[in-house]
C-alpha cells in the first residue's frame, strides 16, 4: 500500500461511525507506522471509525502503564531494541563495544520485566498485538556480522522468553517474526536517513507490512469453520475408481507426499475444531474401501459427512452445509478440477474455492500455509473439541423430523442438562466470542467489542447468562448467551445468541422458561431485529408473539406457558 493510499483511507472514513479506539504504543516516532496501522485496521473494520492514539514517544513502558488508566479496545505494542536499551539504537551516543555493552542484557531484561508487568496489569478485554524487535542490532559487537556474538544471543533469548510469558495471556497476540520475514525482507526494513533525521526508523514498505501484521492480529478476518475436500488427485493421488483402493497413494515412495501432508493437515484442522467433509464423484463402496485403509494420515472418523455419488458437487456442498448448519462464506472447498471449483463457486457465492496443486511443489507448499492462515484462530477453546460430535447428534435429531412421536422420544432420551451461569466472569472470552460469531440464532445481530460488552453487562440492573449444555452424547460446552436488564414487572433482553450446534434441542425454550422462573417477570421484552441471517430466531419468537417479523417483541408469560412444548432438560444454575 502506498502512503498516499493509507492516508486517504484514514481520512475518508466517515466520522459518524462508532469509534474503535486503539493505542499504538511504540518507543520510536510512530509517524507512518501509525498511518499504515490505522489504514489497515480501518480496512478490516469498515463498520467503525478507527481512532489510533499514541503515547509519549521514547517511553514505551510508560505508554503501556498509562493504558491501565485509559483502557482502549485494543493496543498494538511495537518493541524495538532501542526501546529496551538506547545503546542498541543509532540516535544516542552511549557507546558500543564489548565492555560498554556488557550490561546490556541485564538492562534489556529489566526493561522487559517492566513491560511484562505493564501487560499483566491490563484488562483482559484489551486485545494486545505485540511486535518483537524487527530492526537489526547495531554493529557494536566484537564479532563480524556473520557471527552471532554472545550478547546478541543473550538478547534473543530474553526476548523469546518474554514473548512466551506474555503470549500465555488470552488477550495477547504476538506477531510471528518468521512470517514477517517472508513479507518484509530484514535487510530492507531500516531507514537510516529517516531514523537520524526524524526518529522514524522504518522504510515505507516495512511500515506497511508491520502495520498490517498488527492490524490483522487485532481485527483479522474470522477463521473459516469447515473444509470440503475432493478425493481423487486431491485427498490422494490417483483415481480410486480406476486404479483400485490399494493403489491410490500419499507417500514419499510414490512421490505423492503432498497428498499425505494434506491429509495430515486435515487431521490437524479437525483437532482444532474445523469441520472436514468429503464431496467426491465416485462409487461409494470403492471410496469406503480406500477410506478404511489403515495408513490414512487423518482419522476416518474426523471426516463428516461424506458425500460420494455421481451427481453435481454443488448439491453435495449444499447438503454438507445444511448438516453443519453454517454458511458458505465460512467454508473452503478444495478440488483439483477448475471445472468443479467453478460449478461449486457459482452455486455457493462466498465459498472459498482452492485448487489443489497436485503437480506443483512450490504451489503445494504455499497451499499448506494458506490452509493454516484460513483456519488459524488466536486460541483453541473447549468447544472446538465438541463441534463435530454435536453435529453428528444433530443429524440423529434431523432424522426424527416429521415424526413427532419419534422426536419427543429422542429428546426425552437425551438426559439433557442445561446449565445457566448467571453473571459469568467478565474475562470469559467465550461469552463475547459467541455474541460476535453467532448469526442464525441472534436476537438482533449487534456486535460488541469486549470493552463495550463489559460496559453493557456491568451497567446497573444488568444481567448476563452464559448457557452450557450436555446430554448423553457429551457436552456441547458454552452454547448460548443472554444479556439484559431486570425491570419491575418485566425483563428487557438486549442480546441473545445461541450456537447453531445447539439447535433442535429446545434449549431456547428452556432459557425462556428459566428467565420467567428466575426473575418472576410477567413478560419479557426482547430487542429483536431481523437480519439477513437470523431467520431461526424470528421463527422461535413467532411461536409466542405475533409481531416477530422485525421490530421489538414482547412475550407474555401466560402465552409462553400455554404454547411452550414439553421440555425434558434438567436445569442447573450457577453464579459466576
Amino acid at each position: 500500500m502506498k502512503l498516499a493510499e493509507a492516508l486517504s483511507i484514514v481520512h475518508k472514513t466517515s466520522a459518524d461511525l462508532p469509534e474503535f479506539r486503539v493505542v499504538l504504543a511504540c518507543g520510536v516516532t510512530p509517524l507512518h507506522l501509525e498511518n499504515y496501522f490505522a489504514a489497515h485496521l480501518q480496512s478490516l473494520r469498515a463498520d467503525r471509525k478507527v481512532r489510533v492514539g499514541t503515547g509519549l514517544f521514547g517511553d514505551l513502558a510508560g505508554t503501556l502503564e498509562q493504558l491501565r488508566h485509559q483502557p482502549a479496545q485494543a493496543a498494538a505494542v511495537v518493541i524495538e531494541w532501542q526501546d529496551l536499551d538506547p545503546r542498541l539504537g543509532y540516535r544516542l551516543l552511549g557507546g558500543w563495544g564489548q565492555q560498554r555493552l556488557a550490561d546490556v542484557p541485564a538492562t534489556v531484561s529489566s526493561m522487559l520485566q517492566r513491560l511484562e508487568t505493564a501487560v499483566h496489569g491490563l484488562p483482559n478485554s484489551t486485545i494486545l498485538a505485540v511486535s518483537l524487535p524487527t530492526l537489526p542490532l547495531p554493529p557494536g559487537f566484537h564479532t563480524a556480522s556473520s557471527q552471532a556474538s554472545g550478547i546478541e544471543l543473550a538478547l534473543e533469548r530474553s526476548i523469546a522468553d518474554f514473548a512466551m510469558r506474555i503470549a500465555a495471556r488470552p488477550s495477547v497476540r504476538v506477531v510471528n517474526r518468521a512470517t514477517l520475514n517472508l513479507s518484509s525482507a530484514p535487510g530492507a526494513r531500516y531507514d537510516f536517513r529517516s531514523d537520524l533525521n526524524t526518529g522514524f526508523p522504518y522504510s515505507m514498505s516495512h511500515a506497511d507490512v508491520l502495520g498490517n501484521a498488527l492490524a490483522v492480529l487485532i481485527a483479522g478476518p474470522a477463521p473459516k469453520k469447515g473444509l470440503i475436500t475432493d478425493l481423487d488427485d486431491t485427498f490422494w493421488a490417483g483415481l480410486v475408481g480406476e486404479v483400485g483402493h490399494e493403489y491410490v497413494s500419499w507417500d514419499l515412495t510414490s512421490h505423492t507426499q503432498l497428498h499425505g501432508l494434506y491429509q495430515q493437515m486435515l487431521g490437524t484442522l479437525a483437532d482444532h475444531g474445523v469441520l472436514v467433509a468429503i464431496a467426491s464423484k465416485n462409487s461409494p463402496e470403492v471410496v469406503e474401501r480406500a477410506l478404511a485403509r489403515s495408513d490414512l494420515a487423518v482419522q476416518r472418523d474426523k471426516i463428516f459427512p461424506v458425500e460420494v455419488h455421481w451427481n453435481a458437487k454443488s448439491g453435495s456442498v449444499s447438503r454438507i452445509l445444511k448438516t453443519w448448519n453454517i454458511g458458505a462464506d465460512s467454508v473452503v472447498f478444495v478440488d483439483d478440477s477448475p471445472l468443479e471449483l467453478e460449478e461449486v463457486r457459482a452455486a455457493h457465492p462466498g465459498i472459498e474455492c482452492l485448487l489443489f496443486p497436485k503437480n506443483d511443489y512450490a504451489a503445494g507448499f504455499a497451499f499448506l500455509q494458506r490452509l493454516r492462515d484460513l483456519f488459524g484462530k488466536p486460541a483453541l477453546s473447549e468447544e472446538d473439541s465438541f463441534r463435530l460430535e454435536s453435529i453428528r447428534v444433530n443429524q440423529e435429531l434431523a432424522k426424527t423430523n416429521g415424526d413427532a412421536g419419534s422426536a419427543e422420544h429422542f429428546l426425552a432420551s437425551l438426559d439433557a442438562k442445561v446449565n445457566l451461569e448467571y453473571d459469568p466472569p467478565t474475562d470469559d472470552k467465550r461469552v463475547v466470542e459467541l455474541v460476535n460469531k453467532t448469526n442464525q440464532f441472534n436476537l438482533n445481530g449487534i456486535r460488541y467489542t469486549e470493552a463495550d460488552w463489559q460496559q453493557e453487562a456491568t451497567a446497573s440492573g444488568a444481567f448476563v447468562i452464559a448457557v452450557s449444555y450436555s446430554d448423553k452424547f457429551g457436552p456441547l460446552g458454552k452454547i448460548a448467551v443472554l444479556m439484559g436488564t431486570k425491570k419491575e414487572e418485566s425483563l428487557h433482553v438486549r442480546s441473545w445468541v445461541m450456537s447453531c450446534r445447539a439447535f433442535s434441542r429446545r434449549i431456547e425454550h428452556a432459557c425462556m422458561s428459566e428467565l420467567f422462573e428466575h426473575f418472576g417477570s410477567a413478560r419479557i421484552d426482547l430487542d429483536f431485529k431481523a437480519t439477513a441471517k437470523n431467520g431461526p430466531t424470528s421463527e422461535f419468537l413467532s411461536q409466542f408473539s405475533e409481531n416477530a417479523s422485525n421490530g421489538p417483541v414482547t412475550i407474555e408469560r401466560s402465552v409462553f406457558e400455554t404454547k411452550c412444548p414439553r421440555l425434558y432438560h434438567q436445569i442447573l444454575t450457577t453464579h459466576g
Partner: protein
Amino acid sequence: MDNIEQRLQNIFATVFPDLPEQRLKAASQDSVDSWDSVAAITLMNLIEEEFQMEMDFDDVAELTSFSKIHEYLKGRLSHAAV
C-alpha cells in the same frame, strides 16, 4: 495547471484533508495550522513517493509553502530531465 502542480495539489489534499480545494495552492506553514513538523515530513514522504525522488532534509526546512515546493519540484524535475 501543469502536471506537477496538479500532482502536488493532490498531495496537499491528502495531507490537509480539511483544507478547501481553492485554498490548497495558497497554503503555507503560516496560513495552515495543521502544517506542523509531522505534516512537513509527511508532505516530503508523499512527494518522494509520487515523484520517485529523494529530498534533502536541509531543503525541506526551506519548503514552507505550496508555491515554494512547486518551484522546487520544477527545478528538480527539469534537472532530472536534462
